């Protein structure tokens, strides 16, 4: 498969030579996410010289697929970035292992590269860790087309700066991921889902209180007066925790958490009710892609990542809480509200709560999706971007207009 890497490197060199943008594309399932992209190379603010404003090249990395190395007893899997997440997870499942950060797939075509480049994590994040916590190493191409490897396939490695984790969540703006090594974990022996009827403030209190106790809680979700809690682990531990917490055991827990992870839950569709999508089944197949793409038109979905103990946020729209209170989803009717006023109120609420807000899905202009960075942080980020991608060809503007 070296020929594919050579092809990618050629495409990079060619784009760099012409200051043309290169849009890195995995499965295209997260097209909704991030800023709409700028079509030229170097962002206007840092550009020198001329470039072809109309030129956009798509670098499709989905063909570079397959598992490179997987040794279950080493707890490490290395795969090519074009590998479909579904294939990767199926392989792990055969050996009783999993990606513990439960990456959302948002469609059957989702790739490992897209998963790491967006850095998104699912319901298990608060207890198990995020995508970045499981990345052990990457092989990548930088803006010069150089083939580079950082980190490795071992659990502990502090040789050199942590470029692998820097790449995670960088939205493909620093380079093309070729291969990723991830730490994997055994799937829990038992999972059990409990439900409690509570008010929002009570639920936030309960989630934080429980998180301070040695309980096997692996996911939490509050929506519409119901707190849903997943317990994972050895059978006796799960049973004992259930006895301690109380709550009603629900059937179909697996489908519920899948609907949160994949945002097929009715809340994300922007409809009244907000109960889980009962008809949904985990494996969507190709036709599922469309159905999972976003909410009904004119709804904006905000993602607020904040301090877990923050009291209920007073904002327009409807909310769903995950990650023990640290993740608040907000769905707002975009049509009949003052978009600017909402945007600043949401950003302010997130900043006040020690976190940040991102416009996760929107049919609006999607120009400043990510929370603004402090000037000192933006300065460093721009320096990094210039070093990795001197001609500014990779996904220009997808993250911030300046990078």
């Amino acid at each position, binding site marked *: 498969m070296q020929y594919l890497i050579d092809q990618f490197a050629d495409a990079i060199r060619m784009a760099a030579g012409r200051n043309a943008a290169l849009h890195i594309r995995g499965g295209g399932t997260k097209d909704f996410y991030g800023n709409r992209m700028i079509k030229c190379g170097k962002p206007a603010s840092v550009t020198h010289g001329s470039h072809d404003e109309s030129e956009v090249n798509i670098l499709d990395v989905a063909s570079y697929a397959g598992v490179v190395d997987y*040794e*279950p*007893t*080493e707890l490490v899997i290395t795969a090519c970035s074009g590998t479909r997440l579904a294939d990767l997870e199926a392989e792990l499942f055969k050996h009783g292992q999993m990606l513990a950060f439960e990456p959302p797939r948002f469609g059957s075509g989702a790739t490992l590269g897209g998963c790491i480049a967006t850095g998104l994590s699912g319901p298990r*994040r608060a207890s198990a*860790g*995020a995508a970045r*916590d499981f990345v052990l190493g990457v092989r990548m191409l*930088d803006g010069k087309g150089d083939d*580079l*490897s*950082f980190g490795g*396939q*071992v*659990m*502990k*490695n*502090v*040789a*050199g*700066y*942590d*470029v692998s*984790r*820097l790449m*995670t*969540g*960088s939205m493909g703006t620093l380079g093309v991921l070729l291969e990723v090594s991830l730490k994997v974990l*055994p*799937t829990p022996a038992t999972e059990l889902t409990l439900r409690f009827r509570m008010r929002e403030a009570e639920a936030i209190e309960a989630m*934080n209180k429980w*998180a*301070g*106790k*040695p*309980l*096997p809680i692996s996911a939490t979700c509050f929506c519409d007066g119901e707190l849903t809690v997943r317990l994972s*682990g050895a059978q*006796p*531990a799960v049973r*004992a925790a259930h006895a301690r917490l109380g709550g009603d055991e629900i059937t179909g827990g697996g489908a519920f958490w899948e609907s949160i992870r994949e945002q097929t839950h009715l809340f994300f569709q922007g409809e009244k009710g907000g109960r889980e999508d009962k008809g949904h089944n985990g494996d969507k197949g190709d036709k599922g892609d469309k159905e999972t793409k976003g909410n009904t038109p004119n709804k904006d979905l905000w993602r607020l*990542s904040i*301090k877990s*103990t923050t009291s209920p946020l007073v904002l327009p729209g409807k909310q769903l809480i995950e*990650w023990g209170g640290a993740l608040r989803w907000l769905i707002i009717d975009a049509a009949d509200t003052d978009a600017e006023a909402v945007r600043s109120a949401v950003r302010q609420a997130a900043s006040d709560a*020690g*976190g*940040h807000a991102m416009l996760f899905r929107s049919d609006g202009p999607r120009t400043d999706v*990510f*929370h603004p*960075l402090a000037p*000192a*942080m933006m*300065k*460093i980020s721009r*320096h*990094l971007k210039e*070093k*990795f991608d001197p001609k500014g060809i990779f996904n220009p503007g997808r993250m*911030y207009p300046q990078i």
Partner: protein
Amino acid sequence: MNSFELAARLRTVLPSNSVLHDTEDLKPYECDGLSAYRQLPMIVALPQTEEEVVEVLRICHASKTPVVARGAGTGLSGGALPHPKGVLLSLAKLKRILKIDPFARTAQVQPGVRNLAISEAAAPYGLYYAPDPSSQIACSIGGNVAENSGGVHCLKYGLTVHNILKLRVITIDGEILEVGGEGLDAPGYDLLALMTGSEGMLGVVTEVTVKLTPRPEKAQVVMAAFNDIRKAGNAVANVIAAGIIPAGMEMMDKITTQAVEEYVHAGYNLDAAAILLCESDGTTEEVAEEIERIGAIMNRSGATEIKASRDEAERLRFWAGRKAAFPAAGRVSPDYYCMDGTIPRKRLADVLSGIEALSSKYGLRCMNVFHAGDGNLHPLILYDANRPGELALAEEFGAQILQMCIKAGGTITGEHGVGIEKIDQMCSQFEASELEIFHAIKAAFDPEELLNPGKAVPALRRCAEHGAMHVHRGEEKFPELPRF
């Protein structure tokens, strides 16, 4: 600026007794935990507040003076080794615990706070700070962040990078960066990860917000003895294959168990080729079940003796031996040199026999303690610095071990950092183009290379001179550079 002028300038922003300039005052700072390397700094600055750190860095930046940050000086790779023409910036006086938030399970602390002090402060709430380097009574949280330190429990609970939420960092030009946040992620590039393990090269950490973990209800340890190191290695793989992530899994070879047994009387089997300690923690029910399964796996894997700790005192005694490995090395030999390679676990037996072969080649004994769960080896090479040439031999022995780790698909450092010690091995582990990216990252923060110059990432020139270069896909590295 000469040193007197610089000292005078620093005294305009720091109390006079916080600027050390006399040789006898500088002496305690001449080395870190890797005492084979010593160097007096020009000046030691001991700021007491973040504002003072900012002022010191501004002065150093304006006068182009190198700055080396120092926490507790327990580092084992010479990361805090002073620069002869620089300021050694000690963070030891920034040692306040600013806030413990038991409800949110976080602690906000200054960089000079000792690792263990955080857990002690959190204990009344049933919480603790999970990463537990063996040096935890002494090492500082700022140093832990700079080295991405781990401990015996990191397979299950993670390294420093997994257990911090937010940093305040001062760049060399005196700007304040707030990295990370109080939520579980932050916008933009993951500079929190980039700062962690950056060995004081990118900025000075002045505040750390760490996550606190609920103290497990119960912990119990199984001690298993094996007559063959290969069997012990397989036992580790078998535990993982059974879907168990132990809270800790440590291995010691015969020479280590013999050295420590004499010292702590842990009750180890002295005939065993290897001893494995495997800990389970969690709820009482969970631990009981897991310990039974672990015992059965050890049995199936050919253990000659298996003991599960019967109470907390016994658990601590089993661990005491492992924890005493370093002091025991110090007892059986005048000096020892601690290595820190990581390998894929399946290569353990090969690497250990390789180390044995090197041990006879160099005529130096070597004790092996091993974070078996995550493949992190700590060979302790025993030598006597008073015998001419022995230190050089020990270093050569160590360098050979690291080469072996790279060949086995591992790394030259799992948790102690590159510092000055492994700078030449970096040339073997990385290609020139990769080292260039490291230099570029450094330049994004500190273009004039004033922070900890000469550490962590070798100059490409140095790699060419060092000679032991990595030949990758048949190409020679740095063909453009002259050979020596």
